[in-house]
């Protein structure tokens, strides 16, 4: 039984409406409690420091077949960032796609304690879980690619929402997943024969369904299952100039599905979906239109997918997008990885350069979105690691958000397109620590439906990050470098009530972190009869019995059992 008292810190806890108040946080075992006995408790003196809940990353590609293929094809990227073993930590390599252990260490050093994995193909879920087991110090969950699963397409085409819901519940359960991920709905199936869909009303070849119907259908399914998170959506036409229109169409198409004003879908890495202009030469920012729409609606949440100017590796289940990126030229490597009946995928190493007009504008689009959307509970900070940049660049992104000075400094070094074709230079908004805490912790935890994360109220998980920022003396907007350094190296990171990192160094790597997964219990369980099994045999090349992820693959399992209304 351990007790910890974090004393005299400036607590920033938006969920409980606490903004930089000097107070103590008490921890008993792995939970935040009202108070602990001062005498027995270990005291952490946080005077002059900012105390926040541990960071919750809503979208980051940290594990799975796709990520690992990315690792394999980039020896030159690892070569420049070797990580030596210590008596406490394992060896590995870093840069754009770090090895599993290094992923855990570096997240923890920045005060992050929960990370949700962007996407995995259900068939390769075991692989993702094996990797998640090897990522220490973080609670993890993973989204399951469901949007182009043949069972979903067939049932939604027939209008069988209930049947589809039961199948999706079975799939999420058998892959130990956390949420429904939809990537370029209909496009991945079309990519099976090298084609794509180009609007939300294009027909998906061979399946008599459109992306609009897939998205709407899966939102209905998601609601019927009472999933904690909304559907996690990667829109059609991602990365194509002019796609902001598709994004707006998508958002409009889902408007009526929100009945209680709550979000029904989360559009991820929205920066890549906010391009204006007919082609790359006339490429402009569409952030203003998206932001205007978002400021008037509540049925969506977004995350940034910020570009950070680094030599990184783009990877997505959107196979056709990666191929079109490859076709733009100048790329050494292109990986395509289709998965039968479920998904596709692609990888391209990509260097976002400051002097490239497209990269520079992409950089400003991401920031425009975050700054023009007034409510920080609607848009969260990510880089879509590693697509926009590796997650170690988060402090940089935060600096751009809370400091106009930091933005100006980068704008000066960027290609002029960033200044000319976007509104960024005219935006004066500078986010406060309170808003930062929403975009990195409170908001993400709320969007993910995690009541015990992202805040420091009684009963919350004892995941705490303490940063060397004194809100009384440090003007973060002016001294953005100091604050950036503070966000990169948390003074303390506590995971489950254990100090795991101190001053950006790992001091305890023996906290494995849980894998959070959803067990949506339907009234009638999904009937897997002989007919169904025959279908499995026809659709997949592995047998039904060998398909599900067994408990062996989830080292520390945290099942979130929910009652579905179907």
């Amino acid at each position, binding site marked *: 039984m351990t007790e910890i008292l974090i004393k005299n810190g400036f607590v920033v806890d938006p969920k409980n409406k606490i903004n930089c108040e000097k107070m103590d946080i008490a921890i008993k*075992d*792995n*939970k935040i409690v009202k108070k602990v006995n001062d005498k027995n408790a270990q005291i952490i003196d946080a005077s002059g420091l900012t105390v926040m809940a541990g960071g919750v990353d809503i979208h980051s590609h940290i*594990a799975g*077949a796709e990520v*690992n293929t990315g*690792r*394999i*094809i*980039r*020896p030159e990227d*690892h070569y420049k960032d*070797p990580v*030596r*073993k210590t*008596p*406490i930590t*394992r*060896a*590995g*390599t870093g840069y754009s796609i*770090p*090895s*599993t252990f290094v992923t855990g260490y570096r997240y923890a050093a920045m005060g992050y304690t929960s990370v949700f994995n962007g996407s995995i193909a259900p068939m*390769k879920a*075991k*692989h993702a879980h*094996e990797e998640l087991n090897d990522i220490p110090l973080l609670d993890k969950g993973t989204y399951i690619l469901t949007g182009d699963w*043949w069972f979903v397409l067939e049932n939604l085409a027939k209008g069988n929402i209930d049947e589809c819901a039961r199948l999706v519940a079975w799939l999420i359960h058998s892959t130990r997943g956390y949420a429904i991920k939809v990537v370029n709905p209909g496009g991945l199936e079309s990519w*099976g*024969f*090298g084609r794509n869909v180009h609007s939300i009303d294009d027909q998906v070849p061979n399946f008599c369904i459109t992306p609009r119907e897939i998205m709407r259908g899966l939102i209905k399914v998601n609601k019927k299952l009472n999933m904690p998170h909304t559907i996690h959506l990667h829109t059609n036409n991602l990365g194509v100039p002019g796609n902001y229109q598709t994004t707006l169409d998508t958002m409009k198409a889902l408007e009526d599905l929100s009945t209680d004003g709550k979000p029904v879908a989360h559009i991820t890495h929205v920066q890549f979906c906010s391009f204006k202009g007919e082609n790359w030469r006339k490429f402009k920012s569409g952030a203003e239109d998206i932001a205007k729409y978002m400021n008037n609606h509540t049925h969506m949440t977004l995350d940034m997918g910020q570009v950070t100017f680094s030599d990184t590796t783009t990877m997505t289940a959107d196979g056709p997008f990666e191929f079109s990126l490859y*076709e733009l030229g100048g790329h050494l*490597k*292109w*990986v*395509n*990885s*289709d*998965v*039968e*009946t479920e998904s*596709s995928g692609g990888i*391209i190493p990509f260097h976002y350069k400051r002097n490239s007009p497209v990269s520079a504008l992409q950089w400003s689009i991401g920031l425009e979105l975050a700054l023009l959307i007034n409510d920080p509970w609607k848009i969260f900070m990510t880089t879509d690691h590693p697509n926009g940049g590796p997650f170690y660049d988060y402090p940089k992104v935060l600096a751009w958000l809370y400091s106009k000075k930091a933005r100006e400094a980068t704008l000066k070094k960027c290609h002029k397109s960033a200044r000319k074709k976007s509104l960024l230079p005219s935006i004066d908004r500078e986010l406060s620590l309170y808003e930062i805490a929403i975009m990195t912790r409170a908001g993400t935890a709320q969007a993910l439906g995690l009541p015990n994360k992202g805040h420091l109220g009684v009963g919350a998980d004892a995941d705490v990050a303490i940063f060397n920022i004194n809100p009384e003396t440090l003007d973060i907007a002016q001294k953005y470098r100091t604050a950036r350094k503070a966000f990169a190296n948390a003074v303390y990171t506590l995971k*489950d009530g254990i100090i795991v990192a101190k001053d950006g160094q790992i001091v305890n*790597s*023996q906290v494995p972190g*849980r894998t959070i997964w959803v067990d949506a219990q339907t009234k009638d369980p999904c009937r897997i009869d002989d007919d169904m099994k025959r279908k499995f045999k026809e*659709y*997949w*090349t*592995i*047998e039904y*019995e060998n398909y599900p992820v*067994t*408990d*062996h693959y989830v080292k*520390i*399992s945290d*099942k979130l059992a929910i009652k579905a209304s179907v």
Partner: protein
Amino acid sequence: MSKTINNVVCPICGCLCDDLEVTIENNEIVKMKNGCAVCEAKMVHGYKSEERILKPMIRKDGKLVSVSIDEAVKKAAQILTDAKYPLLFGWSSTVGEAQRIGVELAEELGATLDNCCSVCHGPSVMATQEIGIPAATLGQIRHRADLIVYWACNPWASHPRHVERYTAFTDGRFEGSEWKNYLQKLKADSGRKKIEMASKRIARVEPPIKPQVCFTGPPPPMLEHKPGRKMIVVDVRKTMTAEVADYFLQIEPNRDYDVIEALRCLVTDQELDVDKVGGIPVDTLRDVADAMMNCEFGVIYFGLGMTQSLGRFRNIEIAIALARDLNRKTKFIISPMRGHFNVTGANTVFAWQTGYPFALDFSQGYPQFNPGENTAVDLLKRGDNDATLIISADPAAHFPSVIMQNMLKHPLITINPDMNAISRLGDVVFPTQWCGIEYSGTAYRMDAVPITLKKVVEAPPGILTDEELLIRILEEVRAIKIKRGEPVGQTEAKFTHPNTTKTPPVNTAQKKPKRATKKKVA
């Protein structure tokens, strides 16, 4: 008493067929359904080999004598910690769980770590690192491919069910099986042969000797007109797979690179200055290129004939470039025919733990990767290492003799279930269980789809699994290092979250024994 277990996974080749029906009597596999001949040979007969090692052995005065597991582990750990540059090699025929420990052991020792892929499909991995790869899982081929090219491989012998389960002879959603057509062709062929034989007998004329090396046949007209799936085989000799194919292209040995380069030019509509490439007339190649461009979904499967012949990973690089170019015209996929059942897994596990798939050197305290420098064959050829651990592999049967001589200059530890060639040469010889038969674990199919191998029978008493054994060695290595006052890594903690309800295991057969119980097993 006999029982039948369904959906058993075959631990032989990269296909990892998972539909076997195994009948067990008295803790022995007596019958097996659905498997190929290779599978039957191992699953029904091979694993019961009389050469099975039952006790750990240590070489004393030139002879292997049985010892206790503790003594053998101590000796092995001593050898490994004394060595300045030990090599840990093998890994492709064991499960992912053991490979994980292998990386930890290599890291603790500062050893070089390499897996069998460096002598099979390592070049494929290296080519992927240079240029990427358009790949797909096997089911995608089953459902969609209408052009299947087997290049420099002979699945009929090496992956016997590949054609029948995943490619030409399987029914997919959008493409049907060519099995019936093949049977008809076979019948027609045998009928024709009978007539030929009869007429020969009548005429008593010796048949002319067919040229063996160079391609002499006519251009392939069938490729244009044949409905359904088409199968092309490219090889240096007419294999059994070639017999099944719709078209066979016999190229001169070591000319794969030139032929593919020519195809790449033809695919981009360029004229060639030469008339023949690799023994094949350019007109024929043009027809092949047309077939590739005009298919709906094409795939190239390549084998060791390409990865280990002249040019090695450059051959693959160029083949991937061809597939990549073809994607501008149609959909095209290329995949290696990975050999051992979990050689893909070795790459996968090594990569997520270290960032690199094979050819690792931990001597600097962090992983360094460089095939040609840290790969087993190159390392041993230069005579760099000073101790070797071989697990689930038999290099003695496959490595060049000069390399084996260098290996045997230094202490050798082996971990194999039976007394194969390398075990006979070992200084410390560990027995182990047959994974996929006697214990379960994860293996990765040739397309990197993870599948859980099943345990179907009990191992002989006292024999540890690879994972358990490696943990024992690792613990002993750490104990020795602590005695020497050197810093060591931490053993993974048995961490339990008080508020987490760990769901009880559904299938106890698939549950690994916990580390805490290791000592008892010993």
